[in-house]
């Protein structure tokens, strides 16, 4: 990715941006986020198919924002996250430079939001293929089996909230779980409390989830919690024909409505 390094270096040198958020390889070889502020260190930046963390989570982070204008290495999910963040007024288009990465790993020329929008619109926005199969499997189960499956998975949860912290859309400074008047979500990490937490999380991401799968990837105990939000992403599309993160002026599904929204269960 010589182009990426070159572009990052340029941006830092001509002071267009003060920090470039990208990926580097750690000493153990694990790919991790990198924050480059010195053009001489731009060479650390890499991009390969293992770079799957959604970096957009850092765009709302105070200490990163403090640098000034940010450039960010952005695969499709990152670009969609950026759209969501702008539409939800957590980010200004002028405060970032998008170093878009195409599906085949090449640097895209994303000069502005409209170009990014065009790119996103051309892309496949449904859930990633590898999760579609898992979702289909789960959807085949009967209700008792589903309930048993999720109880078993969620009993593992330790409420470390890595799923929340890794998610670019979970940018609230105070989460519902931290409200204790009333105590919406039990503090303790038991199966029931965990289930309520994960239902809450999925509902709060309904129509906002951009299917990056970061929550599931971040989970230290391996709960496939991303399947919950991805299921709703499918359903949002089925019912309302929209995918999240396609435009910076996008209306959130649960904060808007159409009078003729169809359902079949209200009597």
């Amino acid at each position, binding site marked *: 990715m010589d182009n990426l390094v070159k572009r990052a270096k340029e941006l830092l040198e001509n002071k267009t941006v003060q920090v470039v958020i990208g990926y580097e390889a*750690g*000493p*153990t070889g*694990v*790919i*991790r*986020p*990198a*924050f480059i502020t010195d053009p001489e260190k731009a060479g650390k930046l890499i991009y390969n198919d293992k770079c799957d*963390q959604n970096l957009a*989570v*850092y765009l709302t*982070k*105070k*200490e*990163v924002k403090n640098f000034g204008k940010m450039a960010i290495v952005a695969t499709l999910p990152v670009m969609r996250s950026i759209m969501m963040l702008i539409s939800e007024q957590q980010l200004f288009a002028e405060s970032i430079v998008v170093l878009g990465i195409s599906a085949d790993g090449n640097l895209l020329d994303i000069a502005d939001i409209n170009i990014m929008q065009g790119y996103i619109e051309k892309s496949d926005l449904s859930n990633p293929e590898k999760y579609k199969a898992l979702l289909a499997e789960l959807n085949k189960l009967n209700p008792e089996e589903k309930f048993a499956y999720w109880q078993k998975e969620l009993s*593992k949860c*330790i*409420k*470390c*909230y*890595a799923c*929340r*912290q*890794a998610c670019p859309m979970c940018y609230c*400074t*105070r989460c519902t779980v*931290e409200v*204790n008047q009333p*105590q919406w979500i*039990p*503090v*303790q*990490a*038991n199966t029931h409390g965990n289930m309520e937490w994960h239902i809450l999380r999925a509902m709060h991401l309904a129509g906002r989830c951009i299917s990056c799968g970061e929550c599931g*990837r*971040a*989970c*230290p*105990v*391996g709960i496939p919690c991303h399947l919950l939000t991805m299921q709703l992403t499918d359903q949002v599309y089925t019912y309302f024909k929209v995918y999240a993160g396609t435009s910076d002026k996008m209306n959130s599904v649960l904060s808007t409505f159409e009078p003729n929204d169809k359902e079949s269960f209200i009597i």
Partner: protein
Amino acid sequence: METTRKLIRKQSVEKLYNALTSNRQVYAPVVAADKQIEYRYNPGFAEVTFGHIRSTLSVKNVVFPKVENLFFYTNARSESTITDIDMSRIPEVVLWGAHPCDNAAFDTLRSIFCWDIKDEFFSKRLEKLAVIGLSCHLSDEYCFCTSVGLSPDSKKGSDILLSLLKNGDYHADILTEKGNEIVKSAADLFETVSDEKEVITEVKQKFSHEQVTSKLSAAFEHPFWVENSLRCIGCGACAYVCPTCACFDIQDETRGKNGKRYRSWDSCGFGLFTLHTSGHNPREVQSQRWRQRIMHKFSYMPERNESLGCVGCGRCSSGCPVDMNIAEQLEALQNI
């Protein structure tokens, strides 16, 4: 007590295990369906793994569970009544096959829970716990026990420590009276020591913890903290998988007239951990929280508890979603 070493044959290990599970809760590691290593109560012997490097979660929950009820209460019109927890319900547990780092952590935890007043719940659980440890014959790049004064075959915290021999049998170091009791209950399974070689993995020392500790005292304002914690997303995973992290939160939960008070795990990585009611937060940003974590383990604890707050298990690093590698950072810290 004087420690003794015996031999236990490969076949006898299973017998010992089955004997233990017949009259106690044995908490042993298994490979779960999703390939995660987790501890379960009384799994079948065939399920128990002897070849794991580290379980996803530490085993601290046997003495410091995710949630510990402290008491129950009932509110009536004029007064409230409190019902204490029936401590006798705390089961006797044998921790099976835990590695030396995890077992050493029980001492660290004791130094926190019992530094002045003995924490009842912790002490009771520890009292009812017997540990049959297993020295490490495997390790990976995250392991750094040798950098924190331990080793793959440290005996600290174990009642019995098993070490794998080349021929598949085990040496059993009987370290405490509790261990001795267990051996006595199945004396026929233990034989005299052979001269077969133990298989112990090698863990390279990455840093000197003394040097880290001495550097930290002057490093509070160092730019290191911001530079190295930018990528930290502020979840509690490192604290929750850590065998020595002991912070907890106390909550009441009332439903109608009945309620309970309990404590549950908390993490200094959370933004709200130190948030005051006033809105002021002394650790407002993630770098300050990350610094707290390292400082606590490598500076404050050695100072106050005379014990290092880290056993080098590497879980926080392997479990971190953004590769906050603690050994790497400590290595860098000792050179600042």
